[in-house]
Every structure is written in structure tokens, then in C-alpha cells.
């Protein structure tokens, strides 16, 4: 099976540790993962801000880069949802605008092959215990697109529960949005910040050291709020927890 890592532009640029963790984890599980270097961005920020037509070349580029792989794994629920849920919609819209089936045809092959990381682990590799070790008290925030668009459900929690040494504590109001929302964080900064502060207060109330999620963009917002509010908690991507072992622990 040819497996490609679609890291996402945000992770590539700001969170390379997450990318390394995915590579380490998948390699440990016997997957030969490739990082196609021509990859850039799925176009989600453009699409969700209203620039659908600007998004189209980015989606075509994505399809070009990843077309020949059997599986495309991404450590981002929202970028995964962009490909799986919104690429087909872009194809439909192009069709209804009288531009024919071309866009839909180009995008179609990558759609069913794209998996968010925990989905890939649970559904394709069918593993629950990935052999991880992470001796910390952790609470999990299900990010919205992973939760609602992809329907990740219990998958991340099952993986976390199987991690040796990890104490998983339930996050109150877990399914409430953290307030990131892409450009929403800038366009409606006050509401976004209020949502973030409430999320952080809920996280703090669990007594966990670490808030874990499957989306670094949400964690950027939550983490930035945590340090500003001086909570002492850390945001950590789930890939970094699952990659951590007794021999080679995450910091």
C-alpha cells in the first residue's frame, strides 16, 4: 500500500514535530509513509472565507500530488474534512455553474482515499494499542470538523485509552467549539477569544497537564489562550502522544 502523508501547510510550517510524530508512529506500525514534496495546502481557509474559485486551483494541485497513492493520511480533522466533504461539493458547484464535470472528475479519486490520522489507525490499520507510552494526565478536545464532518467519534479516545501511563480525564463541554474557526478568529476576535477562554477554563477544571486534539490550528488558538491566561497547561497533538514510547518518549 502506498501511503502519503498530507501534513497540511500549517503543520509543515509551524508544527513540524507533529509531522515527525506521524512518520515515527506510522513507521513503527510498519507503514512505509511518503511525503510528496510538491504538496502545499488543501485550500480550506480560502474556501471557508468565501473564495471558492480561488480554492479550485489548490484543490486541483492537491489531487495532482496525491492521485497515485492508495491512502492519504493527514493529522488534521478539518483538512481531512475539506477533502472528503467539500471537494465533492466544489465539483458539484462547478457543474451547476455550467462548467461541466471536469473539476469533479479531477477531484473524485482523492476523496475516498483521504483519512484523518486516527481514522487511518482505527479503520485501515485496525489498531487500538499503538504501543505508546505517555505518563501524563490528558484531556481530549474533539475538534469540530473531526467530530461532526468526519464523525471520528470514539476513535481518538480509544487510541488514547490504550496508551500506557496516560490518564485520560473527561473535558466538560468537550463538543463545544474552541472558537478558532479559521478566519473567524480574526473577523470575530472578541467572540472567538471568549470561546477560547471558556474552553481553556473547562480544560483547567480537569486538572490535566495536557490538552490533546487532532488539529493543530485549534490547538494554536487554545494554546495561545492558555499561555496568555498563564494556565500552565500545554496543547499537544494526538500524533505526538501516540508516537511517544518508553524508549523514545515525547518531551
Amino acid at each position, binding site marked *: 500500500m502506498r501511503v502519503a502523508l498530507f501534513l497540511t501547510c500549517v503543520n509543515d510550517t509551524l508544527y513540524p514535530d507533529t509531522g515527525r510524530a506521524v512518520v515515527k508512529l506510522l513507521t513503527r506500525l510498519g507503514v512505509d509513509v511518503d511525503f510528496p*514534496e*510538491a504538496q*502545499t495546502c488543501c485550500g480550506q481557509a*480560502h474556501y*471557508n472565507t*468565501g473564495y471558492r474559485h480561488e480554492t479550485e486551483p489548490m484543490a486541483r494541485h492537491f489531487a495532482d500530488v496525491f492521485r497515485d497513492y492508495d491512502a492519504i493520511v493527514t493529522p488534521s480533522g478539518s483538512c481531512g474534512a475539506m477533502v472528503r466533504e467539500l471537494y465533492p461539493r466544489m465539483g458539484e458547484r462547478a457543474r451547476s455553474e455550467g462548467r461541466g464535470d471536469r473539476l469533479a472528475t479531477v477531484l473524485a479519486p482523492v476523496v475516498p482515499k483521504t483519512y484523518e490520522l486516527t481514522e487511518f489507525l482505527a479503520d485501515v490499520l485496525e489498531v487500538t494499542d499503538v504501543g505508546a507510552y505517555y505518563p501524563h494526565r490528558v484531556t481530549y478536545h474533539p475538534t469540530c470538523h473531526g467530530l461532526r464532518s468526519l464523525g471520528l467519534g470514539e476513535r481518538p479516545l480509544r487510541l488514547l485509552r490504550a496508551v500506557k501511563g496516560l490518564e485520560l480525564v473527561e473535558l466538560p463541554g468537550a463538543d463545544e*467549539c474552541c472558537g478558532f474557526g479559521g478566519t*473567524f478568529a480574526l473577523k470575530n476576535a472578541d467572540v472567538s477569544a471568549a470561546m477560547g477562554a471558556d474552553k481553556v477554563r473547562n480544560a483547567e477544571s480537569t486538572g490535566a497537564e495536557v490538552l490533546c486534539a487532532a488539529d493543530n490550528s485549534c490547538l*494554536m488558538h487554545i494554546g495561545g489562550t492558555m499561555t496568555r491566561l498563564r494556565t500552565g497547561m500545554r496543547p499537544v497533538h494526538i500524533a505526538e502522544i501516540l508516537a511517544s514510547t518508553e524508549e523514545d518518549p515525547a518531551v
Partner: protein
Amino acid sequence: MSGTFVGMPAFPVAAREAVRDTTLRGNLRHATHTIRAKRARAVAELDDWERLRQAGKRIKDRTLRHLDRYLVQLEESVTAAGGVVHWAADADEANRIVSELVKATGETEVVKVKSMATQEIALNEALEAQGIHAYETDLAELIVQLGEDRPSHILVPAIHRNRGEIRDIFTREMGEWGRPAPEGLTDTPADLAEAARLHLREKFLRAKVGISGANFMVAETGTLVVVESEGNGRMCLTLPETLISVVGIEKIVPTWQDLEVFLQTLPRSSTAERMNPYTSMWTGTTDGDGPRSFHLVLLDNGRTDTLADEVGRQALRCIRCSACLNVCPVYERAGGHAYGSVYPGPIGAILSPQLRGTGSEIDASLPYASSLCGACYEVCPVAIDIPEVLVHLRERVVEGGEAVREGSKVRLRPAKGHAAERAAMRAARWALTRPGALRTGQRLASRTRRLHPRTLPGPGRAWSGTRDLPAVPAEPFRDWWQRTRGGKDGGA
């Protein structure tokens, strides 16, 4: 109601005030969280909930896609049952029709059942201008009317008020409008409800004209349905001699049987009850029971324009349950007034810019009043994909394009104030379709990382006013990969 939505500031500006109002935040948090948990329980009682939801969606879609036929059928059924049907293309026309009908009765006051359509067209103000006084009889509407306030929620227009504030409004204002509040009124909800009962009783008993909306109109039978809790609806629908119902054209369902879906999904979504206390159904007029004359005013007011949009028309499926408001994290913090419309919350954010167009500052900002978290779509009992329509309307704001306004095709220009963003998006797209350009940018960021501030000046303050920026790493992932081939070449 003296409050008005004209000239509302953009959503972020209005929301900023609300976010800082701790009383309002507390009131909204308390109310929405109370109902959220109850709704979840009420819905969980039905194991076929998702099937009911999809059936509701299908029924509404079928109606909308053949709306002309069902409107004509409804008109025939209502007329055959003794009602009179009027058609109003916009708010002014609807207000004119209702004013004339009231004047023809010789009355100068009317009692009203809570109705979103009549709020939308500002009927009370229009009647007042004609010397006709409209009394709101729903408890929350009464609170809003007495407080000279604006509604902030579809189901509970006074949700922004807590019991103490309501007690103060009743004590201060009831005497000006009729029977004063009882001496020593407490702030327990039961006492406040009792005060409303006493205050409105006399108005119900003497009322000669009632004005309502409707939750549903059945095309095949001509039946109108009003779903309510307090009994004020029953009072207004049965005691007056004349009943005037102003209803949006999208409120039709084709068949009597279709009600079996919505009478299950609406109460559970709305007040989180298995069934609301009272539902009234009437078909034209009945000899010796209820109003002797019945008028139905069918309201367009932007609905056909909305219908013309293949993506946006799903907003017309809305049955006004307000479940989307109650789960919305943005609504909970921004409050209903920030939406600048009688339709607040997620549904308002897609309905107002379609009914009114995206021309005003508030309407152009509403599609952005969401983090696209999708909680609204998840609870919607007619499966309106609100995030999809929000993004679609964002596109209309930034790209412009074809739309229908007042029945005519127009070409919209991209909204002002998005030029810099558009340029940035275009530049980003250019870079993001060229891996080399992306890499150059990433390396530049990494090399200069020690110079990066943790907070930003200018527009960047929108982020860094409340959140620290992440540190830029020493190298982007792709450089590590190139160096090590994923750790295989050593040097992790």
C-alpha cells in the same frame, strides 16, 4: 416595540459589547445550557429521530420545489373553507393589507400571538402609525414590548432578560399599559407568569381582532396550525370575531399527513417537550365556534429571492424551532441583538442576508458570524446545512455575482472592505499552488524567527490581543524530510 434594526453596526462590533456584558453572558449561558441538555433528552426518546429529520427535510424540499402549485392549492382550500386569502409581495404591502382589514372592523386595538413574520415586517409599528394598538400576548413578547426592547431569540424573545430584570419591567411598566403588576411582585417565574395572566386577561376578553402567524399551513385541507405553550395563542385564535394570520409562503406543507413529522420534531427541538401544551388547528371558519371572519395574508418579502438560490433555498425549510440558537457557541456569547434582525443565531445569519440581501454592513457581516463548528446543522430538525449556506453567502459577499432581488436578477459587486483580504487570498493561492514559493516563505520565516514578536501590531492585534502566537520552528517539516527522508537517513 421601539427598538429597531435599521442602521445596525456589523456583527463583530455589536458582538464586542455583548461579550463584555457579564449579566447578558450569564443569562444566555444559563438559558441555552438548560435547554440544550433537555433537548438532547427529548430527542433521544425517539429512536427514529434521524429518519423523522430526513423526512422533514424531504417534505419541505418537495414543497419548496413546487411551491407555486401548493400556494394555489392552499388558496383554494382556505377559500373553500370560508377564509379570505391576500397576497403581499413585501412588508409594506402586508402591513397595508392588515391595517385596512383592522380598520374595516372599526377597532383600534388588536391582540397578537407571537409571530416571527409580523415581527419581520414590523407590523406593530405600522399599525401604531394608523392609530391601532397591538398588544403582544406571549409572555416573552410582552416582556420585550413593555421593556421597549428588541427580541433576541426566536422562541424566547426575552432570553436576554433574567427573572429579576423581568420583575422590574413588569413592576415599572404594566400600569402604563393596563392592569398594574401585583403589589410586592416577586421574581419567581410562577409569580411572573401569574402577573402576565392577570395583566392580559382583560385584553383577551374584550378583543375583537386577533393577529397571528402560523407554524404550518396544509395545502390540501387549508388548515393552519399554531403551536404554543401559554394559551395566549388559543385566546387570540378563538375569542376575537376577526382573525388575521400573516404567514410566510414557505410555511406550507402539502398534506395533512405531513404534520405527523413536524408535530413530533418541532416541540422536541424547540422547548424540548414531547409535545407543547397547546396546538391549535383551524380550517377557514366554523359556524358558532371562533372568529366569524378569517383572513390569511401570504407574505413573500424576500422569500422568493431566497428560493431562487439553489444553495441558499434550504434556509426556507426552517420551522423556527430555535434549536440552532440554543447550541450555537457564537450566539451564546454574542447574544441575539448583535444579529441585527428578528432572526438571530445561525439561522438568522443565513436567513437575514437572503431575505434582505447582503447590501448593508450588518447583512454582509452575518455570514461570518460563525466558526463553522456545525453544531447548528447537527440539531436542525429539517437538516438545514447552515455551514454550507454560510460559506455560500460569504462567497456572495466577497465575489459578488448573480442574485435575485425583489424578483429581478441582479449582478452583485464584491462587497467593500474585502479588497485587502481578496488580494491576500489571491497571493496565498499563488504561493500555495507552487511548492517552491511555499518553501521559500517557510525558510524565510524560520530564519527570521528570533525576530518575531509574540504579539502583533495593527490588524494582527485581532489575534494577539488575547492569544500568544506560536513560535516558528527552526525548520519546516519539509526541510527535515529532505535532510533525513523521514528519519531513515539518520538525524532526527
